[in-house]
């Protein structure tokens, strides 16, 4: 158990910058998620913590030791790989026992510890099989068991759920969450799935182009995004971004229509962010503006209305009993308490 500190960490391959001068402090027993689109440097960051990649500059600290020059085997971390990285020629038992064996654990301790780890992930009936004879979800559990069979200083998980089908992913996600609360070990978890990040993390670091855009709790990331990138990356459906301007405390959308009151200085150009849940749907004429329905989707637990005026499209979430048709006219109003205003060029948040 230990905290992990990254100090001005950079990874370059020739001219390509993977991770750009990033510092990050991961607290003891914290579950930190590195979130971002592919190629944003999140996996590279994790691999540098594991020692599978050497930083071009900067330092990696685990506990009170600078581990830059330590081999992976000497860093006392456990890692779950995206493709599981199971040893195909060994039985499940031997797979889980491997970290114990190579670290010289006394023979009589190995079997009980493997059995305990296997029990935690419900693998007991499969210990004598080879990985090939298991399903994707079961292999995932083996990888997990191999990580938790020891108590390492840090768990590293590299998109561990991305190879599972959607249904299994949800189940495994909750099992992972349960397990991590139980184990209380510092964990770094890499994913491009914002739901995984939101549900699992104590804190999330959102990355783009090798730079951490925002570091915060899931609440902060969701409700107080620092820029357009974070705002658009988190949440499903994606946050609506409406182009327009601000004048006299009013956000004016394209075509000169007043959309919503906003406490901000005048802007000749601005982007307004609003989540689907913060748009209310009314009968025509009763909202701030009238819009045409571009598409109506019934998801069962709610309805999603893609509406359009001019070239602007936004998604609003309606009641699950709401029924509308394409090309119907409705009125919408935006909740003035949950609005985000951004600089269109830099994407920076304008405080309101």
């Amino acid at each position, binding site marked *: 158990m230990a905290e992990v500190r990254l100090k001005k960490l950079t990874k370059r391959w020739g001219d390509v910058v993977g991770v750009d001068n990033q510092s990050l402090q991961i607290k003891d027993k914290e579950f930190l998620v590195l979130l971002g689109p592919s190629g944003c440097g999140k996996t590279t960051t994790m691999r540098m913590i*594991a020692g599978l990649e050497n930083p071009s500059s900067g330092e990696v600290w685990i506990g009170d030791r600078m581990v830059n020059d330590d081999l*992976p085997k000497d860093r006392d971390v*456990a890692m779950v790989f995206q493709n*599981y*990285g*199971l*040893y*195909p020629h060994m039985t499940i038992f031997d797979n889980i026992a*491997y970290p114990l064996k*190579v670290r010289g654990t006394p023979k009589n301790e190995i079997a009980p510890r493997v059995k305990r780890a296997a029990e935690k992930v419900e693998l007991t009936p499969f210990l004598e099989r080879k990985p090939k004879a298991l399903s994707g979800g079961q292999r995932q559990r083996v990888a997990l068991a191999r990580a938790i069979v020891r108590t390492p200083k840090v768990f590293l998980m590299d998109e561990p759920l991305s190879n599972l089908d959607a249904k299994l992913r949800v189940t495994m996600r909750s099992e992972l969450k349960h397990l991590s609360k139980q184990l209380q070990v510092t964990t770094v978890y890499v994913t491009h799935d914002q739901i995984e990040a939101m549900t699992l993390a104590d804190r999330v670091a959102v990355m783009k182009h090798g730079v951490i855009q925002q570091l915060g709790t899931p609440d902060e990331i969701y409700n107080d995004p620092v820029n357009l990138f974070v705002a658009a990356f988190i949440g499903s459906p994606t946050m609506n971004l409406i182009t327009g301007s601000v004048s006299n405390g009013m956000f004016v959308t394209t075509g000169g229509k007043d959309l919503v009151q906003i406490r901000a200085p005048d802007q000749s150009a601005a982007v307004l962010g609003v989540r689907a849940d913060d748009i209310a749907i009314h009968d025509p004429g009763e909202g701030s503006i009238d819009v045409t329905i571009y598409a109506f989707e019934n998801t069962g637990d709610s309805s999603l209305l893609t509406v359009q005026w001019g070239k602007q499209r936004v998604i609003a979430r309606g009641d699950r009993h709401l029924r509308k048709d394409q090309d119907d006219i409705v009125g919408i109003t935006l909740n003035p308490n949950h609005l985000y205003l951004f600089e269109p060029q830099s994407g920076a948040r304008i405080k309101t």
Partner: protein
Amino acid sequence: MRDNTLKYLLVLPAVVVVFATAIWPLMESLRLSFTIGRLNRPGSLDQYLGWENYTWAFFDEPAFWNAVWVTAVYTLLTVALTTLLAMGLAMLLAPGGRLRSGVQTLLILPFAMSPALIGVSFRFMFNPEFGLFDAFFGLVLPPLAGISWLADPVLAFAVCVMADIWGWVPFLTLVLIGGLASVPRDTIEAAQVDGASSWRVFRDVTLPQLAPVLAVVIILKSIFSLKTFDQIFMLTNGGPGTATQTLSHYIYFNGMKYGQIGYAASVAWLMVIPMIFLTYAYARYVFRKN
């Protein structure tokens, strides 16, 4: 129906060629192995002896057993050393290994040379008067200069083994590089993180996953070592005496030089036994299911 006829018609030429150039000569040699079969005695190719050629080889010919012994040692040494060296080089040259690219292309050169040419060039290189090695040792280790390498039974044998290794390591290295590339990186990295030293990663994770490729390499090389002929023929011609006389060289000498074609055929068929075994093993590994 028409389709079927056409099908057989189309493969017929190939079948005829294989039959005429492989099956028929093979059967003919099997027949000859049971005859007196002296090239210089007319009619002897049809005089049947029964198993006498075979029993002669087994019980009355020390030279045969010498050739078996030479072939066995030669095969064991070349297979073991070539595989070990190729494995080491492949580890260094594989993606992520320490050497690469330019070296890799350069390495294939020896394999591009014909074995006979390798034999000739090594004979010159080990010439005690103007050979490359003589000049080299003269410079570095003077006591070793002026040795007649190919005149000493043990040294000549060593030179043969060396020439063979030199010729074969590159090709097997390439095959093993391919094999190493197919070992999932994940598993190696998982072992590193799990706490294994680089030797244990190799022993516990890389090697077991490389085993099928390694088996093919060893079997193939065994077949090639067993049938070595041209290199030895050009390098030492089996000498000094019979110190480097392999079975195929022994067969050639008895058949072509002494004209005992019947006896030579029987020895050749004795050699078929280990060959069949190895070919079977090879086929099992290459064409095995899943």
